[in-house]
């Protein structure tokens, strides 16, 4: 009998779901009926985010990120999350500051000293991957295959501290990295347009919107604008997510704030700087109290930011080509 030689094994614990288990979940739990999934963020997070879930999100902290949903997860004080931080400047930091996170798969863990200290103290456990390897893992999860073979991470300590395995490829006879498929328990994604059934489209670079949604058991999207289904049928090439991937649709204008959303508003640099200057737990808890716990919902949060500021951010978003 022939064996494939295993050359090296990364030591990280991985979140892994057998492809057949995932398929059966999709068969039984993902409704193919076009039904109205519009709900507020409180209901969506209550129904679809559980303590201990593996959480993924798309796009980034500064562009089309699902920030209103992140704040709702914090408001509901979810616990023991394992976060896919493909590249993250704010989300993981706020979630960690609020005590929601135990583990982080790192692509890029930005935001400086606050999160660095949490890692140094061992308050959160990190597993090092890279943006590319995590993306490829999501691709595998979206394809229903158990792993994907790729040529990143090879030769590095990143690989040693990831959950990848190096084998000798039976075709090329060269060492090849196998990345385990990633099937998150829940994905939260912000989009420009969605209908009430969950058909959705994004404008601009897509990062891993489709792969993340396809690979995840539960998917919540928040949308700047709710549109009629005919908008998708008129231009089907522009459908990023078909409705049957999506479990909940939240109407969230300014849902990416303090980041921006292409075609709608720019990021709020001042608010962002205020966040990145948080260095200790005192400042973090003060921020969370003021902007998350003490407001009831996204609308109250926006009222706190104020119409003047929001208008300025809309005013700055002058580039529209490509975004409608």
């Amino acid at each position, binding site marked *: 009998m022939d064996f494939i030689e295993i050359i090296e094994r990364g030591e990280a614990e991985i979140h892994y779901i057998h492809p057949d288990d995932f398929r059966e979940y999709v068969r039984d739990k993902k409704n193919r009926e076009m039904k109205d999934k519009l709900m507020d963020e409180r209901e969506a997070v209550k129904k679809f985010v559980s303590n201990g879930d593996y959480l993924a999100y798309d*796009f*980034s902290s*500064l*562009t*089309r990120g699902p920030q209103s949903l992140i704040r709702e997860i914090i408001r509901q004080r979810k616990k023991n999350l394992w976060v896919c931080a*493909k*590249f993250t400047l704010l989300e993981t930091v706020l979630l960690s500051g609020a005590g929601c996170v135990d583990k982080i798969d*790192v*692509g*890029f*863990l*930005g935001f400086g000293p606050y*999160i*660095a200290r949490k*890692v*140094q103290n*061992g308050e959160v456990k*990190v597993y*090092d*991957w*890279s*943006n*590319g390897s995590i*993306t*490829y893992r*999501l691709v595998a999860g979206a394809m229903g295959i158990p792993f994907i073979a*790729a*040529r*990143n*991470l*090879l*030769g*590095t*300590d*990143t690989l040693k*501290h990831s959950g990848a395995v*190096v084998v000798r490829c039976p075709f090329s006879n*060269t*060492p*090849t990295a196998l990345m385990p498929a990633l099937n998150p328990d829940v994905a939260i994604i912000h989009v420009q347009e969605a209908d009430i059934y969950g058909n959705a489209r994004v404008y*601009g*670079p*897509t*990062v*891993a*919107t*489709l*792969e993340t949604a396809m690979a995840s058991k539960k998917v919540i999207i928040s949308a700047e604008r709710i549109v009629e289904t005919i908008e998708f049928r008129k231009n089907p090439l522009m459908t990023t997510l078909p409705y049957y991937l999506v479990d909940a649709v939240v109407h969230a204008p300014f849902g990416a704030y303090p*980041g*921006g959303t*292409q*075609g709608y508003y*720019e*990021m709020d*640099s001042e608010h*962002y700087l205020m966040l990145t200057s948080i260095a200790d737990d005192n400042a973090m808890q003060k921020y969370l109290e003021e902007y998350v716990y003490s407001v009831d919902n996204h609308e109250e949060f926006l009222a706190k930011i104020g119409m003047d500021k929001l208008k300025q951010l809309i005013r700055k*978003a002058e*580039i529209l*080509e*490509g975004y409608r």
Partner: protein
Amino acid sequence: MGVEFTDTEFMICNAARLLEDYKTIFVGWGIPQVVAILAEKLYTPNIVQVFEFGSVGHQSRTPFLRGTMGGPTNTYRAIQWCSMNLAFSYAAAGYIDYGVLGAAQIDRYGNINSTMIGDDYNKPKVRFPGSGGGNEVASFCWKTIFVMAHEKRRFVERCDFITSPGHKMDGKTREEVGLARNSGPYRLITSKAMFDFDEETKELRLIGVLKGLTIEEVIDDMGFEPLVADDVVELEPPTQEELKLLREDIDPYGLIISKGAKFKVEI
């Protein structure tokens, strides 16, 4: 007559001068973005930028906007917007010629560290953001250019953590670990010098020093002794044209270019 400039301006200008026109370049966040914009404006107008976010061939708008790399200003009039999966796969399949990366530490084979400092992974002395897309850039691009401040502590015999691969990792070549043939580190540009990698041994080799500095001064500020080329050249400081573009057009608020020590060189 003298010219004054920062470390960062020097590195950006030297990196921009290295690029070739009608080539593709994988551009990371921050300094690499400014390198690409300067090159596009001054030296290589047809260079095609690729962002990991999924933007190909965008046309730079100035002033450079820090932050929202995937937003409208930085991805303006692209040839293609795509997924991150595709952006990295372009590089993996061989379509991307150059990559530009920063580093916290580098060793003599061009391995770089952007993950952590310390000898215990679980209790790092300093924790950095990690690979981001750096591992992919260093693994997949044909030629990778590193940009790093010239400080002794950054040049190490063995990186505390090899985030992204160089030419030899703990004695193993790129091909031996399964990386693509003929790819890898191409140049290291620091605030004082430029290095390539010896064709035979693949070790870091000093090929240029900033005008006004000696080879000894440059090597004294390193944690190990590099190979030295027979004909080490003088690296010209930023030109007036480069500085004017950087300071008045590309980065008038000094978000990137004002960082680092200031130099003055007589010209």
